[in-house]
């Protein structure tokens, strides 16, 4: 499909946003005094030259919390995306390539899973597992794979039915060989694009979970900042500087990855148009 956006512009915008976040993460590793004042006893003091983004309910520098939060959000975004993409790819390839009853079962399982509202289920799971970094990653990773699985499965089926795979069996290639050497490289484009999109989703999901109060209190993320702003009265105080910046960061980061992923997807689609018509 020809993209509405010119892919290069799209990807440039995405890459710029992603780089901005990576820069934030990098800055967060500098010694604390470098990027924010460490002492400020006044809660809810508005932005000033000492506290560029003001302070929050306990007098913490918002910029500092924001920079530290970038690590958590991005890290969970990546880890959650890795787990879900690996599961989705394995399920998708297995179902699409084995075909028959395996495909039937895995395929309808995937379709069913898609129907379950993901965030509420994640909330329940996370509430049971308890608040920790790893649990958030697990909950997102274990529940966000069906879309990937569905796309990979469709692609793997296409490849499985294509002439060159039939020919490969003809010259004596084994199934595992074909999966590893031929199916994987051909689904790789889908997988990569899905991965980038999954990073975006993971960041949003993590923010949602943290907003509802299920994030790791030891590692406050951007979503957690919104949670505190909501529950501890920053909104009612009109302390906009405590919740406007994290919201912008969440939106920009997820937008950046979405743009990047969409660019990759449309590029990939136009490149494989002819193979798409094999099956």
């Amino acid at each position, binding site marked *: 499909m020809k993209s509405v956006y010119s892919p290069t512009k799209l990807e440039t915008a995405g890459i710029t946003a992603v780089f901005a976040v990576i820069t934030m993460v990098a800055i967060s590793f500098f010694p604390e005094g470098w990027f924010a004042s460490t002492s400020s006893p006044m809660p809810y003091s508005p932005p000033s030259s000492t506290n560029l983004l003001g302070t929050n309910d306990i007098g913490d520098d918002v910029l500092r919390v924001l920079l530290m939060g970038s690590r958590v959000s991005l890290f969970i975004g990546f880890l959650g995306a890795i787990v879900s993409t690996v599961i989705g790819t394995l399920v998708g390839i297995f179902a699409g390539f084995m075909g028959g009853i395996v495909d039937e079962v895995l395929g309808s399982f995937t379709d069913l899973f898609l129907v379950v509202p993901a965030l509420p289920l994640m909330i329940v799971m996370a509430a049971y597992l308890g608040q920790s970094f790893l649990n958030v990653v697990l909950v997102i990773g274990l529940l966000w794979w069906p879309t990937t699985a569905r796309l990979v499965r469709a692609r793997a089926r296409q490849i499985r039915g294509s002439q060159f795979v039939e020919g490969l069996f003809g010259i004596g290639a084994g199934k595992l060989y074909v999966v590893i050497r*031929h199916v994987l490289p*051909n689904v790789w484009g889908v997988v990569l694009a899905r991965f980038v999109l999954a990073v975006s989703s993971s960041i949003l999901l993590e923010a949602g979970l943290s907003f509802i109060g299920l994030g790791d209190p030891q590692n406050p993320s951007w979503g957690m900042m919104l949670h505190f702003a909501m529950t501890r009265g920053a909104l009612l105080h009109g302390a906009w500087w405590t919740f406007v910046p994290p919201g912008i960061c969440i939106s920009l980061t997820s937008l950046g990855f979405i743009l990047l992923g969409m660019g990759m997807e449309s590029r990939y689609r136009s490149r*494989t148009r002819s193979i798409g018509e094999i099956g």
Partner: protein
Amino acid sequence: MMRSDLSGHLTEVQPSPGRQTLIECREVKKRFRYATKGSFLAVDGVSLSIKRGELLAVIGESGSGKTTLAKIMAGLIQPTSGRVFFEGKPITSLDRRERLNFSRKVQYIPQYPDLALDPSWYIYDSIAEPLRIHRMSSSREEELKIVRSVSARFGLSLDQLRRKPRDVSGGELQRAVLARSMALNPEVLIADEPTSMLDPSTQARIVRLILDAQRELGFAVLFVTHDLQLARVISDSVCVMLGGKIIEFGSAQEIFSSPLHPYTSSLFSGSTFAGETKDNAACPFYSQCNLRAEICCNSTPPEFNIGRFRGVRCWNLGQPH
């Protein structure tokens, strides 16, 4: 190619030293079932053998089951009934080693070259792949040497080998597919309309390349085509397919000089005749045949053998009216 004694009606052809049967199928049928309902009999009781070194052409109109037959002979799809033999053994009961041997010695070239190679692989790797699967080269250098020599035979430069399928022309891709099938030094090449997607001059060049390679290396070719002129020029023997059956076979010379089946003669003369159409007539040519009789509609004509390698499925030849 045929010896001149046409006296005996031998059912089993004695394997003469130079002409031993490599692949043979007996009474194979292939029925495709559709997910919704119904099914389609694409190949309907075909027996055919490919002998060492010969060039056998299969001609027939679109949908007559040529591709299906070719794939069955190459072991790519399982027939619904009937069996395929390789060097005298049914291919379903080959053991691992024999199966590998079969997949090395019998090479299939699909109808559409643009779908024959993995689009994400470099052409070089695709050509070298059969060697790797069969561990035919001990080192990278040896592999390069073999790939180079088969590619050179089909006029492919190393530069073209370094591209992916989408970056070469259809003719070049077809040659790459040929080079790949030649890499294992096969004994049978099953080529399914290898030239149908190309322009006439490229067609001629590719056919030339196949014939040269065949003369030099001595493999047998099953050449599927619907190009009558081509079949006449290149083949030793010819099978004519219609509606999933072989309705006539014989040496190329005989078929072209004196076609026996009304369908074959209509192919050559280009004349058509349209009678009332009957959906499930026993003879697939029934509704277009100007010589048809009642029996043609009701019972399938058996194969009437005339001479040692000549057969036709037409009631007109078996039973004078």
